[in-house]
């Protein structure tokens, strides 16, 4: 059941709209309920061939020899594809954004780095014939010691998973094995804290488990082009990745997709498009490459596991004064998108709270498992689990209500965030207040009166002097000039930062003075706040 709480922030909206905000029926719904919606696999082409890949049974092994002679003679086989047949058999997805080094082959040649890594592709008339041919491929391996634990993998002398990154960590800024976040001085805050709590959290890998598995169908089109029916979550991302791996011009490829049976991040890797297209080029026939369910679950890329250490400093009165995070994202054998999740994670620390001292080191670590990829909230979901469990423990530790503890530390408009950008358009406090009300979770009056729009900025907008690694200091910066984000409302003088609240358990009778609720805003100028009008502020060169 969903209710719209229109009265909250009403002064910031113009709800006088025709189509926006209406529960209009989905454009695609009738296709869904009639079964007429066409997914990639619903395009039927004459003379369709089927592609299956041989996958490594080892977690980590050197490939000594591959013998495909029996497979090539097997009934119905049109083509056997080896790594050597792939024009550019080394890629990394984010190379399209100039981020990271090519580190992953389409088909392994010298070495396999995870169980399930593709080695040989077979193109045959039927799926059965492709399976029979796969069973006839002979591969000799020299098994190597695998490493599965992120903290084992970064120890000196650990087996090297991926030679592109010999330290088993992604390289940031050409010099670091992790991404840093530095704001203030956490060590000093720990020294002065009433309580310090350090805990370890483990996010598990997760399978996207879309009901439609990954797959694509590639076929020769007119003018020497190839059409590819795909389930890709990024159409040009997949097209350009395929063009790079096959070393063809992008306009040789015509990708058709856009209607996907669930993605959740599991269809951004172009797991099938490059090989299906290559197979179509090599055979001149339409080729279908669809993962089976076990393949999808075990060898399609999952959400990466994360091991997160959180160390916090908290005062008796509930103020969070420092947060230090060390996190290891398990990227598996190749980078895919984990290197980016690390950046997203670093920017997210310390969560939606204003903490004067923050320190984070986030690592992208290689292990001998299926490469991880994007999934719904990756880089954030895991660290939110860690931070919010930690917040519950801290509230318990100082005897404060967890809702009130969140409200007290919540970031507010005008506060400076650890990644050195001003917090704007914040609404955490209001979410906590409404959730408490819905759940009939009692919170004290002064907490019900607090607002994301009051009490931020001022001293809280400044950047503290920051201790950098190697002893250097980044200078403090005073509160920045107001930016284009600020609304007329901000004209009312920013109230002082909230007074520390003594936890009820210590002194229940004492209720400190709170800033008054914001004055009722002026009634909106007609049109001035129309959603469309607001776009004008988007374009141009606003600095974020």
């Amino acid at each position, binding site marked *: 059941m969903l209710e719209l709480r229109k009265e909250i922030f009403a002064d910031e909206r113009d709800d006088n709209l025709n189509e926006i905000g209406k529960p209009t029926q989905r454009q695609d719904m009738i296709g869904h309920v009639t079964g007429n919606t066409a997914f990639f696999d619903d395009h039927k082409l004459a003379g369709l061939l089927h592609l299956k890949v041989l996958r490594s049974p080892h977690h980590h092994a050197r490939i000594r020899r591959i013998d495909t002679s029996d497979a090539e003679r097997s009934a119905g086989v049109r083509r056997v594809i080896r790594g050597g047949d792939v024009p550019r058999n080394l890629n990394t997805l984010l190379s*399209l954004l100039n981020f990271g080094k090519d580190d992953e082959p389409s088909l392994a040649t010298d070495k396999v780095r995870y169980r399930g890594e593709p080695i040989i592709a077979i193109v045959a008339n039927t799926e059965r014939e492709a399976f029979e041919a796969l069973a006839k491929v002979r591969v000799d391996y020299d098994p190597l010691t695998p490493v599965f634990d992120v903290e084992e993998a970064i120890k000196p002398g650990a087996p090297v998973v991926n030679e592109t990154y010999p330290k088993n960590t992604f390289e940031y800024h050409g010099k670091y094995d992790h991404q840093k976040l530095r704001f203030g001085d956490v060590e000093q805050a720990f020294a002065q804290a009433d309580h310090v709590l350090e805990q370890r959290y483990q996010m598990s890998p997760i399978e996207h488990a879309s009901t439609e598995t990954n797959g694509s169908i590639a076929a020769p089109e007119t003018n020497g082009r190839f059409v590819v029916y795909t389930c890709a979550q990024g159409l040009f991302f997949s097209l350009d990745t395929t063009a790079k791996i096959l070393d063809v011009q992008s306009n040789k490829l015509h990708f058709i997709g856009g209607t996907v049976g669930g993605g959740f991040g599991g269809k951004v890797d172009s797991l099938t498009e490059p090989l299906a297209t290559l197979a179509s080029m090599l055979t001149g026939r339409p080729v279908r490459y669809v993962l089976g369910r076990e393949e999808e679950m075990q060898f399609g890329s999952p959400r990466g596991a994360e091991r997160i250490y959180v160390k916090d400093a908290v005062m008796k009165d509930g103020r969070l004064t420092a947060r230090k995070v060390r996190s290891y994202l398990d990227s598996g054998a190749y980078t895919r998108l984990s290197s980016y999740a690390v950046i997203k994670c670093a920017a997210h620390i310390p969560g939606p709270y204003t903490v004067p001292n923050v320190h984070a080191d986030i690592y992208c670590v290689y292990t001998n498992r299926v490469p991880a990829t*994007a999934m719904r909230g990756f880089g954030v979901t895991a660290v939110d689990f860690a931070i919010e469990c930690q917040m519950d423990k801290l509230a318990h530790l100082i005897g404060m209500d967890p809702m009130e503890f969140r409200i007290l530390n919540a970031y507010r408009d005008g506060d400076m965030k650890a990644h050195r950008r001003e917090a704007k358009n914040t609404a955490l406090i209001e979410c906590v207040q409404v959730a408490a009300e819905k759940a009939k979770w009692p919170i004290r009056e002064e907490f019900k009166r607090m607002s994301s729009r009051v009490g931020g900025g001022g001293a809280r907008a400044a950047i503290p002097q920051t201790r950098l690694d190697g002893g250097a200091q980044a200078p403090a910066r005073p509160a920045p000039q107001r930016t284009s984000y600020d609304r007329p409302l901000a004209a009312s003088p920013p109230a002082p930062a909230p007074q520390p609240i003594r936890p009820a358990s210590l002194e229940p009778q004492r209720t400190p003075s709170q800033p008054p609720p914001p004055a009722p805003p002026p009634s909106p100028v007609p049109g001035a706040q129309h959603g469309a009008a607001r776009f004008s502020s988007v374009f141009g060169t606003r600095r974020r």
Partner: protein
Amino acid sequence: MKHRGKGMASINYPIGMNLGGDPSQALVHSNPTGKFTVALSAIDLGQGMKSVTRQIAAETLGVPVEDVYVDTADSDTGPHDMGSFASRGTHRVGNAVAVAAREARGVMMEAAAEELEVNASDLETDGKGNIHVKGAPHRKISTKDVAIAAQFKQGKTIAGRGIFLVPLSEVDPETGEMSPATCYAHACLVAEVEVDDETGEVAMVRMDSAYELGRALNPKMVEQQLVGGAWMGVSHALYETPEPYYPEPTHGPRDFNEYAMPGPGDICPHDIAVLERPAPDGPFGAKGPGEMCANPVLPAVANAIFNAVGVRIDDLPITPEKVLRAIRQQGGAKPQARR
């Protein structure tokens, strides 16, 4: 014996990715009878891309939603879009569609002005397929007639191009200074669970939540995301993983019998409040509910389990085995203060 407990968590979520710049494009054009097509390469994976951009285009053009059809995704006809991930669709593509629709609307109004012999600035749309002089609704012309005139008489193209780009944000190697996103969605969720202290089984009792996502462009589709996303959050918290004994890579599930997710018999009531604090740079203020809806559920469930039986499980997923071992280690369930 069974124990009930409540836990909460609050989160924010960055809308969109930012690595190498984050652009989306859209093209909007009218057919000769005033019906509009939005051409995209953006992907609909069920989140409702085709539908939400359709409403944005209709609102901006000032025509009924039935007069707009969204065509996606064909790389020959749809202009570039980064893709459907990072909760960027509504915000990035929505903005691009709004820009394209505004350009098309401008041509449409010029063409109408020429037909009505007034200044375009004196005209407005009624959202029902007509354009009329402000304050004089009887002096009107239908979008159909405008399109026909533009096409066959005036030689005008009622069309628009739109792009929305979040420029590249450099990341400082030493301090991590960066602009990871342009706006943030917010949420707070309360989970109530029931824990069986003999088996370690955790059953969901109910969820109450508040999600702030700028603007609910379509409340029903927002509800789809939030209800389904919270279910996935429960699944992450209590059930699923392809590596049940991580980091040991053994006993991986091979099918939907072995891959545990909450069944229709495991779900609980979920009451949701939606707050709308418009993002200054969002299409009609919208942010993106797609990913963040699952995030508060994981910690809220873990915290509820502590409230119920006094054990902290910091290692996902929180299986009955982990809960049982922790309760045993603690010497039995230790229920905390009821909420």
